[in-house]
């Protein structure tokens, strides 16, 4: 959307014309939600088993990146443990069995 669309705005009111709108303003004064990582907190605390990649076996086929429903596996195959819910799809789908689900000690 170009400037013309933004000036008119959907929230109206205090979010007003031309001014740069900060996230706090949107959050408090209008009903618009702000896109954010961890919108329900650190979902990593849901997990019982944690995925561990064995770099020696990994062929970088990126299947775990594609199948991760949380978008927690990066293109460089680093798993974001703050948000990984531990569903185990990456370990199940890895064609080389390079990912193991290891029981996690409670933090």
């Amino acid at each position, binding site marked *: *959307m*170009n400037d*013309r*669309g933004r000036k008119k705005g959907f929230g109206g009111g205090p979010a007003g014309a031309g001014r740069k709108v900060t996230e706090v303003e*949107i*959050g*408090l004064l209008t*009903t618009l*939600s*702000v*896109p*954010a*990582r*961890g*919108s*329900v*907190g*650190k*979902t990593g605390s*849901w*997990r019982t088993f944690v995925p561990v990649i064995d770099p020696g076996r990994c062929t970088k*086929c*990126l*299947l775990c*990146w*594609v*199948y*991760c*429903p*949380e*978008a*927690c596996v990066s*293109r460089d195959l680093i798993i*974001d443990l*703050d*948000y990984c*819910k*531990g*569903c*185990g*799809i990456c*370990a*199940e*789908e890895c064609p080389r069995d390079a990912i193991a*689900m290891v029981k996690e000690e409670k933090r």
Partner: protein
Amino acid sequence: MRIKDFPEEELLLPGNAACQGCPSSMALRLALKALGRNTLLAVIASCTSVLQSPFPATAFDLPVLNMAFATGGATGSGLAAAVERLMKKGVYRERPTVLVWAGDGGTYDIGIQSLSGAAERNADFIYVCYNNEAYSNTGTQRSGATPYAAWTTNTVKGKREWRKDVAQIMVAHGIPYVATASLAYPTDLFEKFTRAKGIRGTRYIEILAPCPPGWKFPSGHTVKVARLAVQTGLWLLYEHREGITTYTAGTQRIIHGKARRLPVEEYLKAQGRFRHLFYPERDEERIAEIQRRVDRVFETLEFTHRLKQHIMDIEMLPPR
């Protein structure tokens, strides 16, 4: 299209309220990768309304409109009309894609009349039904998409009726593009969305979404169950364009005789919702009934394929 070429940009952010191993967030993530940031998303009441997370944060990094259950088609038509008007006014530099995202309850049962109306008007939007074969958001009640013999909270001994096929109903509407997809074939799903993006008019894509809590299997098996559905022939992958149905990916491999079709038992055994077919004793009758149905469908498909090959051999027609 290879997996390596998928765009890196994430429009569905981590830390959302979806269950572990959620097929809906997985499907939406792949769909948004294919459609790109210039998309207007309308979410019809379903699990996807919930996984956006509570105010003031949202997990979706693009404009989202949350709408009531029965309004899928109407919302799509309205957004498409608004986009048309704003394009004329010059507000958009590039035409945004309107994506309506609904579950099977909002498509098969509650939303079908507005969807049918919009399809008849050929309104310009992509309608996606992610089909988890029950009202999973409210605790797994039966829907029009629930398959024969499946457990839900109100079909305790297994559903007595067969599911209806809304993808074929949409084919009968004569809209420009109808496709079915599976989470287990991401490149196929990605290509279907890219193709749908390039077409104007109503486009319907249905994705089979195995739901771990609703179908009762471990959260890691989402993709495995989705793959078994295709390999056993209970879920057909195809796209329908200009009056021609083309079977794709796993289904095509089976029809062309390049892959063996697995017995339906393997798919049924992988899920707890079919447990009453195997425990306390095997219900041979119902398992055989499901197998017979699939066999009949594939008999026709394989026959049609062989016939086409035969005619091509005789007349030396160029392959289509």
